[in-house]
């Protein structure tokens, strides 16, 4: 018999322990868009941890999703290591000036102190603030970039991916530093009471091939996933865009939940559904931002039905970040569909 009316936290804990839940977990990746729930622009919480945490708590109170997902941009850790970002009024910051241009520049890169460098402390404060508001009923997670994506932001993506072929030693040196940095931030997130959620958008098959993933991404992500698992938390790995060529590697490197974007869930289920829990993949732009609540419901239901017999289970989610300005009723439709149709039959 399934328990009824679990809180998101109880549901997540049951999921972690392999116990029955009242319904599927539903985690739309509401990241920068969470500011809208507090009536704020992105720039208003970028450097204000308590405000960022409160915006996400407000967002949770509005939608009741099963996990809070703190995140602004994938350059966060690289910034704390020396990369310069460009800031906007109502968009997340992006890389303006990478810190590494020549092999000698690698020596300029510093390991960050999560408690003082860049905007890392903002996230640690936001975790505490969101936990103080709603931490009794929902887990607060913090999404952050894996070493491959960090290294791309340290060197500039095109230069970094060219270095994989032209200067592999340099790429590995950067990746080692990026991994050390990610581990430091990972530990700080856990210590602050958050759940670390690794994301690796630049390691997507939309950018690199499976052999490059095996040499330059997986070995550096693996120790981080191991550390998350050792803390008793679920090792999630989110990869944007295409990932069909590396699902096996993602599972091999220790991810227990694969958060997927532009993929065929049926194909993913057949490939790795017996080894991992699948998470995804309602399309952010064409369905959530531009679609109707009916379309959102239809696509949400499609994911639920496709994965109903996936042995490792399924978490309903958006394929990637819920876009800024997504209509409330569309996010609501996703959660409502899971409440209505996501219960064990």
């Amino acid at each position, binding site marked *: 018999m399934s328990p009824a009316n679990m809180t998101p936290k109880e549901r997540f804990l049951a999921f972690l322990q392999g116990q029955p839940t009242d319904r599927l977990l539903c985690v739309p990746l509401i990241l920068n868009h969470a500011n809208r729930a507090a009536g704020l622009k992105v720039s208003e919480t970028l450097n204000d941890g308590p405000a960022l945490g409160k915006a996400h708590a407000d967002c949770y109170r509005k939608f009741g999703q099963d996990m809070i997902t703190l995140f602004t941009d994938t350059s966060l850790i690289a910034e704390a290591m020396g990369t310069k970002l*460009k800031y906007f009024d109502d*968009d997340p910051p*992006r*890389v303006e000036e990478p810190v590494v241009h020549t092999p000698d520049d690698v020596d300029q890169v510093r390991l960050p102190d999560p408690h003082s460098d860049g905007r890392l402390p903002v996230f640690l404060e936001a975790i505490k603030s969101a936990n103080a508001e709603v931490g009794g009923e929902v887990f607060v997670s913090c999404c952050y970039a894996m070493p491959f994506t960090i290294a791309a932001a340290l060197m500039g*993506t*095109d230069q970094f*991916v*060219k270095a*994989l*072929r*032209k200067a592999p030693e340099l790429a590995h040196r950067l990746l080692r530093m990026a991994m050390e940095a990610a581990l430091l931030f990972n530990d700080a997130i856990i210590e602050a009471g958050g759940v670390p959620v690794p994301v690796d958008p630049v390691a997507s*098959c*939309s*950018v*690199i*091939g499976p052999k*490059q993933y095996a040499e330059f991404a997986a070995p550096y992500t693996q120790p981080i996933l191991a550390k998350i698992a050792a803390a008793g938390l679920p090792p999630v790995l989110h990869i*944007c*865009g295409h990932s069909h*060529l590396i699902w096996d590697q993602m599972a091999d490197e220790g991810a227990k939940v694969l958060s997927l974007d*532009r993929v065929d869930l049926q194909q993913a289920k057949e490939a790795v559904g017996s080894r991992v829990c699948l998470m995804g993949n309602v*399309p*952010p*732009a*064409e369905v959530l*931002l*531009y679609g109707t609540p009916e379309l959102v419901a239809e696509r949400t239901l499609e994911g639920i039905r496709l994965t109903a017999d996936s042995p490792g289970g399924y978490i309903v989610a958006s394929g990637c*970040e819920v*876009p*800024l*300005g997504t209509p409330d009723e569309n996010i609501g439709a996703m959660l409502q569909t899971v409440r209505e149709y996501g219960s064990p039959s």
Partner: protein
Amino acid sequence: MIVVDANTILQGLREAVIEMEEDRARELAEASVAEGMDAYHTIMNGLAPGMAVVSEKYDNEEYFVPEILICADAMYAALEVLRPHLNPATMPQQGKVVIGVIAGDIHDIGKNIVRMMLEGAGLEVHDLGRDVPVKQFADEAERVGADIIAMSTLMSTTMEGMRQVVQELERRGTRGRFKVIIGGGPISAAFAEKIGADAYGRDAAEAVRVVQSLLAGEPRSQEAHDVAS
């Protein structure tokens, strides 16, 4: 370097692009000039077939972004040598493309790959760069007499800018003069249709095919229609 004949040079250029050999591509381009070969012929029969193979390998998931960028370096090294020797009088009319990443977005790797493949296919490409304001697409397309306006974005938040470009062209009464093609991570064929673009390219290889078919299908006939109406 010992050069046997023109065909050896063309074959070598093709291979240098495919095999990502920038120095070899440059040297062969210099050799072609020294041999008095027609630069346009060298581009179309050396570099273009090389880029076509690169595009195929990308389609087949054999090449990914790192390879494409390095192939592009090789192609551009040769182009740089050849371009000053192009003779417009003996060249056939090329399609002209204005390309850019829409305002608000600075992700330009995808756009650069499309540009490179279009140039590799022998088209004249005017690259506006990234974070390009709506009006600039319309201005530049008019200025250079473009056939095609190509726009990309990786971000869902900047997709609306593409619609604004189409609207801007309509407002100016120049929409019929250009074919508009869009692409990028969050873009779909449905979105292209919704904003009144002419076409969508799923990836760089498809973008080139679509541009070529747009150019082949209705070469400048719309312009005459515009003038008449």
